[in-house]
């Protein structure tokens, strides 16, 4: 059987995005609303 000389880096398993990034995404999601008008869709970002 082939010998594997490389292991998956454990460093990669501990990587996570910054809290600020996740917070931004959740806030972006809350701010974004889509309005349907006829067959059109409008995206609105509310502050």
């Amino acid at each position, binding site marked *: 059987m082939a010998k594997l000389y490389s292991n998956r880096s454990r460093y*990669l*398993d501990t*990587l*996570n*995005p*910054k809290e600020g*990034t*996740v917070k*931004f*995404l*959740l806030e*972006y*999601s*809350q701010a*974004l*609303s*889509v309005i349907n008008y006829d067959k059109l*869709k409008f*995206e609105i970002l509310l502050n």
Partner: protein
Amino acid sequence: MRVEQIADSVLVTKYIQGSENSLAILIERHKQKIYSFIYSKVYDRNITEDIFQDTFIKVIRTLKLGKYNEEGKFLPWVMRIAHNLVIDYFRKSNRIPTFDNRGEFNIFSVISDSSLNAESRIIKDQVESDVRRLIEELPEDQKQVLVMRMYNDMSFKEISENTGVSINTALGRMRYALINLRKVIEKHNIILTN
């Protein structure tokens, strides 16, 4: 007590119906896998952060616009978006010179594209043809060694085997060939620069 995990597809449906908390759960559940995947390709924390953010912005917009179809699984779909954004990043970074803010001066951030424009290419061709004409004026033995070394990319060992002279003689002929070329160039004021 065993806690049942809510399936991704259920969370996606709830999110589309307006449950913002479902998105928070989805991000929390998959953030490490997606972030690590991006990092394993770009090896830069800041760029990874940007691509991660862009990935989820795309996810959020697609879900809110109702363009998501539940054919595949949620995670592979997000991974595919991240993968495409990584490709876009490499495409852009090949075209646009970038400055990194790590404090160190990086020469590669300021040097320009090495490929030649039309004018430089014409000059380069002209210079190369001039050099060829000068080489034609060299004594036969020197010309032979120079052509083998510079145009045929042969080692001096191979040249000595092919010409039947010692390596030292081949080296000497090469040296005289270069000296003679320089002499002719200086004598006739030939400009061989691009």
